[in-house]
């Protein structure tokens, strides 16, 4: 620091009367003296006064920045006095004794001014100057410092901040001095005060040896002599042997340029990202200590290692098999072999095939198919589930024409949009089922999205092999399970307790149960070994839940079947299906056709279906090939109501699970939805079938307002009931009212 340097130079500063600086300083001092005298008597800020004297200097401008108070006080927002206290507290007593020196000493003042001028020249960080000036000089020099700073400021214009700081310090010091003076003034104004003038030690700052010596000084003689000697020397120099001129020359070697070039240093950037999962994997593999899991972070090598390891033990037998198959070309059942000989399967070649066969791949294919179908069928499925359908934002061009047409339609057919109608959503069909007649449909009891459809002919002629397909709502294009049976399927039912058990009744009288969970194509149990099996088509199978355990029987479900040979059998699922003979149908809610024909011979022609109302426990419907649907009550031997709409056999009838007065029926050419609350003469909704196709079965969806209609071509179409508003009032009452009123009218 320059100030420290200044400190060191302190003792070396020599003052000579010839110095130019001093002259100026004395004048400065005189000037200052003037101001100081005033300072003593006036309480105002000395700094201010001094600045007013130096009118020509720029400091005036800078001083305006200074606040003209003799105490600089800082208050924070609470009004507390947080004035920064100076680091150096000059001893007031010492200050007092020395302050008279300001006026008296010319030379000493000069030294100080010298010091300060140089100090300022070298000082860069003037904020240091403030405290340093005070601390450096101690009490004896503070006063001098103050006045000389003023003076140097007058002479040299340094940066304003430094001046400001110092002037603040100056004012601080001045203040202290003045305070001290105050005390003196009041008490001892008239007293005689002794003043002692002592010279302080000299501070050397710069020593410039003089080029001239005064004649009066002691050295003058020696100097003169030396000068004379030198002059003589110079004179003698010309021809003197003592002084010979010689010249020297150094050899400068010829510069030679040398170049060095090294091989380009190849830089390789290596970077790695420590991801959370990476650390987790490494930790896990390190913790498990398995060699199989490769702990290295390189992902490229990772899968290879893993795949090789994983595939090796499991696929080895298949690989050996593939070797065998190459040699025996004839044994390959359905493979496309290339012309090139496939000698030894290399390490890589079987891998793609192994990938294709892996479980994961099959799973992915399965999911992918469902995703694709979801994309295709999303609006339909949403309608089925009664969710608002989202419009695809990308189908822009189609919007315009439909908007126009819709407007026209809406203006014309305002009423038609409100009439109840069936809207076709989609249909379950695939090439496997085409041509087969849908004979029965059943929902899975646990998963309402799973549908089992049985395919089989009703009549004796054209008996094809039967088919059972389990469809999922998520894939209307391909069934989840396909089971083939020897004879046509006539009836299906899912078990409620064991949701994956499906009982099937067939045209040849046999009954089988399938487990739809597994991928096996064969039935779990078959009735073919049973001695008492049915000999005629089974019209209905049902799982009946025993609420009360009869003697010796477990509480659970039993399978009941009704067949055309007049028997109702209860089956036990033991090693094979075994049945007990005819069972009285009293406790049974759903009874096959035969029992009714025994009791009520009012209908001609075979009854195709009997269904009990889910709301009124003693009301049931029957439909037959005599073109009628009939509503019965259990206690009456004649039907309460009969419904006829067309002259075609009614194949299926079913109550709506949601409304007591609504039921649906399919005859050969149409689907009819009847709402007894609205009309008992005409169906509320009629939907025609496609030409050439006969509608053969009907099923209501349990959760939504949809119906499923199976036809003779193997298609199961899903329709949504739209705008079907059923009258208010409790459903059961409504039905009872209708029946009651009808009976009353009949009497």
């Amino acid at each position, binding site marked *: 620091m320059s100030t420290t340097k200044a400190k060191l130079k302190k003792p070396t500063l020599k003052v000579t009367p010839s110095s130019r600086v001093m002259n100026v300083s004395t004048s400065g001092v005189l000037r200052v003296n003037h101001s100081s005298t005033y300072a003593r008597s006036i309480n105002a800020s000395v700094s201010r006064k001094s600045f007013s004297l130096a009118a020509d200097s720029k400091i005036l401008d800078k001083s305006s920045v200074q606040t003209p108070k003799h105490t600089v006080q800082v208050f924070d927002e609470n009004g507390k006095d947080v004035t920064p206290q100076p680091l150096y507290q000059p001893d007031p007593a010492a200050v007092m004794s020395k302050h008279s020196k300001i006026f008296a000493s010319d030379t000493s003042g000069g030294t100080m001014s010298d010091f300060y001028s140089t100090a300022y020249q070298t000082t860069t960080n003037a904020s240091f100057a403030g405290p340093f000036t005070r601390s450096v000089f101690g009490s004896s020099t503070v006063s001098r410092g103050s006045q000389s700073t003023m003076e140097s400021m007058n002479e040299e214009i340094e940066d304003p901040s430094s001046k400001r700081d110092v002037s603040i310090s100056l004012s601080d010091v001045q203040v202290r001095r003045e305070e001290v003076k105050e005390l003196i003034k009041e008490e001892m104004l008239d007293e005689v005060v002794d003043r002692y003038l002592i010279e302080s030690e000299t501070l050397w700052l710069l020593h410039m040896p003089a080029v001239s010596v005064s004649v009066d000084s002691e050295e003058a003689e020696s100097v003169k002599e030396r000068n004379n000697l030198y002059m003589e020397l110079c004179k003698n120099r010309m021809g003197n042997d003592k002084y010979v001129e010689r010249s020297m020359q150094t050899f400068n070697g010829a510069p030679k340029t040398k170049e060095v070039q090294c091989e380009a240093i190849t830089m390789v950037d290596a970077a790695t990202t420590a991801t959370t999962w990476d650390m987790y994997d490494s930790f896990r593999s390190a913790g498990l200590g398995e060699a199989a899991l490769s702990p290295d972070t390189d992902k490229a090598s990772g899968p290879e290692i893993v795949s090789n390891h994983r595939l090796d033990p499991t696929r080895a037998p298949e690989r050996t098999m593939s070797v065998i198959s190459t040699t025996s070309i004839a044994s390959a059942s359905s493979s496309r072999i290339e012309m090139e000989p496939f000698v030894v399967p290399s390490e890589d070649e079987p891998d793609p095939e192994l*990938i294709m066969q892996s479980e994961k791949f099959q799973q*992915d294919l399965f999911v*992918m198919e469902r995703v*694709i179908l979801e994309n295709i069928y999303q609006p339909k499925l949403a309608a089925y589930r009664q969710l608002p359908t989202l419009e695809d934002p990308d189908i822009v061009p189609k919007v315009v024409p439909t908007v126009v047409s819709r407007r026209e339609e809406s203006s014309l057919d305002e009423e038609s949009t409100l009439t109840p109608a069936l809207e076709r959503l989609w249909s379950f069909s695939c090439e496997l089922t085409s041509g087969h007649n849908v004979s029965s449909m059943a929902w899975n009891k646990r998963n309402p999205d799973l549908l089992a459809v049985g395919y089989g002919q009703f009549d004796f002629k054209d008996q094809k092999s039967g088919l059972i397909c389990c469809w999922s709502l998520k894939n209307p294009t391909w069934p989840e399970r396909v089971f083939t049976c020897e004879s046509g399927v006539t009836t299906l039912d899912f078990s409620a307790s064991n949701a994956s058990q499906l009982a099937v009744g067939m045209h040849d009288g046999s009954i089988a149960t399938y487990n739809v969970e597994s991928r096996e194509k064969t039935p779990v149990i078959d009735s073919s070994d049973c001695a008492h099996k049915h000999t005629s088509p089974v019209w209905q199978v049902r799982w009946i839940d025993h609420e009360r355990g009869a003697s010796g029987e477990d509480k659970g479900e039993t399978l009941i079947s009704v067949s055309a040979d007049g028997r109702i059998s209860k089956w036990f699922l033991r090693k094979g299906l075994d049945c007990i003979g005819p069972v009285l149908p009293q406790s049974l809610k759903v009874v096959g056709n035969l029992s009714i024909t025994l009791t009520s011979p009012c209908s001609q022609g075979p009854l195709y279906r009997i269904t009990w109302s889910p709301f009124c426990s003693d009301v049931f419907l029957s439909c037959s090939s005599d073109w009628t649907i009939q509503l019965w009550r259990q206690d009456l031997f004649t039907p309460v109501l009969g419904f006829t709409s067309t002259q075609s056999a009614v194949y299926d009838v079913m109550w709506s699970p949601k409304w007591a007065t609504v039921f649906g029926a399919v005859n050969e050419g149409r689907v009819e939805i009847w709402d007894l609350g609205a009309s008992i003469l005409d169906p509320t909704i009629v939907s025609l079938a496609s030409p050439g196709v006969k509608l053969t079965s009907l099923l209501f969806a349990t959760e939504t307002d949809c119906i499923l209609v199976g036809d003779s071509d193997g298609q199961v179409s899903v329709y949504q009931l739209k705008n079907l508003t059923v009258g208010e009032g409790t459903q059961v009452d409504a039905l009872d009212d209708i029946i009651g009123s009808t009976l009353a009218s009949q009497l």
Partner: protein
Amino acid sequence: RFSAVFIFSPKQAEVEETLKRIQTHKGVIGTIVVNAEGIPIRTTLDNSTTVQYAGLLHQLTMKARSTVRDLDPQNDLTFLRIRSKKHEIMVAPDKEYLLIVIQNPSE
């Protein structure tokens, strides 16, 4: 070109059938199965397109998987769907292969 297929298991036949079915669904533009190195195993698109799809989707799948696992290391990516203006790209990723299907759902 490698195209020999040895169907020595009923599973294989089922897999082929499912693949064929997927390809014939409404709106499906292409189906690609590539192995971990990017070599196509089954594809219905031309080679350059296949390689392009496989390379780009492989990177995206890695990034997606990294994201999923970063959030929860015990989780893993099972399916990735990218819906664009023209079509939808569906990717079923695995360590050993990539199953890619491109579908135009609005057809």
